[in-house]
């Protein structure tokens, strides 16, 4: 926890983070099966606060980062649940319309 805290905005202390996690659980209706799981999710939550802080200071546009409903997911879990783990797509046929259907079918 002390390592994570070092990378967080300096004004955030542990009690504040606990409060933020409790608010997060309430806001997004999160429940965990055990105390161990809650503890693990809290660590992931702190890690995501750190990531948000890093993204915020390096943002080139006007985007704001912070707590979202995905804040208790690791990057890997988020990618697995919401991202498509497909290989890079092969270039598809550029255009398809009724007159070309026969040709397209032959090509594919």
């Amino acid at each position, binding site marked *: 926890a002390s390592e994570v805290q070092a990378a967080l905005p300096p004004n955030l202390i542990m009690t504040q983070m606990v409060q933020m996690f409790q608010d997060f659980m309430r806001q997004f209706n999160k429940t965990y099966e055990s105390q161990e799981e809650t503890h693990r999710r809290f660590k992931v939550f702190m890690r*995501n606060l750190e*990531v*948000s802080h890093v*993204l915020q200071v*390096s*943002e*080139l*546009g*006007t*985007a*704001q*980062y*912070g*707590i*979202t*409903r*995905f*804040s208790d*997911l690791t*990057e890997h879990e*988020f*990618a697995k*649940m*919401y*991202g*498509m*783990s*497909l290989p*890079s*797509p092969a*270039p*598809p*046929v*550029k*255009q*398809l*319309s*009724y007159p*070309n*259907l026969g040709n397209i079918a032959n090509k594919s």
Partner: protein
Amino acid sequence: ISQSCDWRKAGAVSAVKDQGPDCRSCWAFATVSNIEALWNIHQHVPRNLSVQEVIDCAYKKTGCQGGFVWDGLLAVFKNRGLSSSVLYPYVGRNQPCQEHRRKKVTPIYGYEVLPRDEKYIAGIVASQGPVTALFNMKVLQNYKKGILRRPSQDCRPDHLDHVGVIVGFNEVKSRRGSWTGPYWIIQNSWGEHWGEQGYFRLHRGTNTCGIAMYAVTATVKDSERKKPVLCP
């Protein structure tokens, strides 16, 4: 090309949906949202179409592992239409294609993969309607609001793992000169409580997060009686 366009203002874009945590069906939601918007704009017919039909019938029981919009559009094209979401509701899991539920209410004329040129894509969005786009979703986990602009190493344009619908574009000019820039308005499928009421904005013109790599859209014929709606 107009400086701005937002199809939501014309009422052409259907409501934001939530794909849920158990089915990686963003590609199917984008396919359906694209067709719904084009039917609104060119045929003047609002529709709520079946995402589940696209998931079930474009691939054989693997649609919840992910997919490509062009495969979804090809399935709609081959079947000469898509059923309504009431007849063929979303269940968010893999299942066989339910032929008895397929009612072909919205045929498409074809589809098009757009060139990797954001000016061209903006022209298509303004003149034809919303288009789908593959992009890298990594930074969206912690996104809350605003216009995203990341260096390519943070959001690799060659790792495309999510699909959304570009429903418009605009430009922001800060009075204080702190930030100016063009942006895309993109509909996501994580519910209306995520991001900016289910949408996010992404910098336009620099292929941010690979947004220009695979922009794909259905083509829908104009109604013979009415002109298409203009983008507000």
